């Protein structure tokens, strides 16, 4: 059981976290690049507006990874 958690469930969870965070960051970056390409003047404001949700998203991903690792360490 512990082996199953250690070698399957937690790597699987970590992979899912990476997929989710990657999708989110990718969409944000794509939208920002699109906006800047349309309106290069507003690049600063667009970057500023994208930053905050980006960091919040990153925080969620890191929280999930920390919890996955906690399960790993506590489960042993």
């Amino acid at each position, binding site marked *: 059981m512990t082996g199953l958690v250690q070698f399957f469930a937690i790597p699987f969870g970590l992979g899912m976290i990476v997929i989710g965070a990657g999708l989110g960051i990718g969409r944000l970056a794509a939208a920002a690049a699109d906006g800047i390409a349309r309106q290069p003047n507003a690049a600063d404001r667009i970057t500023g507006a994208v930053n905050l949700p980006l960091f919040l998203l990153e925080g969620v991903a890191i929280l999930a990874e*920390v919890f996955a690792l906690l399960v790993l*360490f506590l489960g042993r």
Partner: protein
Amino acid sequence: MWVQEIAHQTEHAAPEAAGEGFNAGKTIIEHISNPKDHPILHLPTIMGIDFSVTKHVFMLWFVATIVFVVVTWSVRRYLRQERLVPSGFMNGLEAVVEFIRDQIAAPNVGRKWVNTWTPLILTFFLFILCANAIGLIPIFDVLGLLDHWVLHTGDHSVVKRIIHGGTTATANFNVTAALATITFGAIIVAGSMAHGFFKHWKNLVPHGMAWPIYILLIPIEIMGMFVRPFALTMRLAANMTGGHIAILAILSFVFLFTEMFHRALAGIGVGLIVSVPLAVGISALEILVVLIQAYVFTLLSAVFIGMAIHVHH
């Protein structure tokens, strides 16, 4: 504390399955954890709190001293000038201060409260940036090499005690938790200063809704109050720890391959072709992460303080 301590304990409690061979996990965990059993200065436990000076405590004081001395000294010297024109280091410091005030503090907390909250946010930024950056310099690893090859100190010398564990103070969850606790307090103080103590707590939930919604909303808002500093804690410490783990894991390929093929040449080859270029790349990425994480912590602190001041429901 939690992850590192638990990891540390379980690593020690785990039977030596790999025998006397190279244990990558154990080496990495020993490097990044706060070594409680090898304190630099042993102090007694008072009321269940161990006051021993471990390496992260030492690094914390070291960084705080550097920030305090350098900033105070350069600002004092600047103020003693005849003409108030910054030069040299003061130029850079002034650029940082203006960036924090105009880009981070002012848009979030508003013009009225800029001078109240910029000092706190600026202190956060300088301290976290210095702690992160100094943690990237492998001072103690170089010291360990020197000790192994040149100095040859005894088993219980200060040098032997100092070379255990990692060097990034902000990679310790206790340190970032303390920083986030300051933010937590600052949010409440900011709300109370702007709206009065009781009004601040009332502002947590929007007004004028049907009462069943409050049954759902009040617990969520109270949880959110604690989740925000918790996320700050985890983000900073996990980012700082993660980079170190990645670099160490890649560098441990050298020893793993040496052991696998029973030949030093295999390890050196893998090291030259894979490990060192990758580690250099990750180190370069880490320099970016150091800056970004200091920026993120200060920005989010400013945003949360601003949210308590400008309640928009």
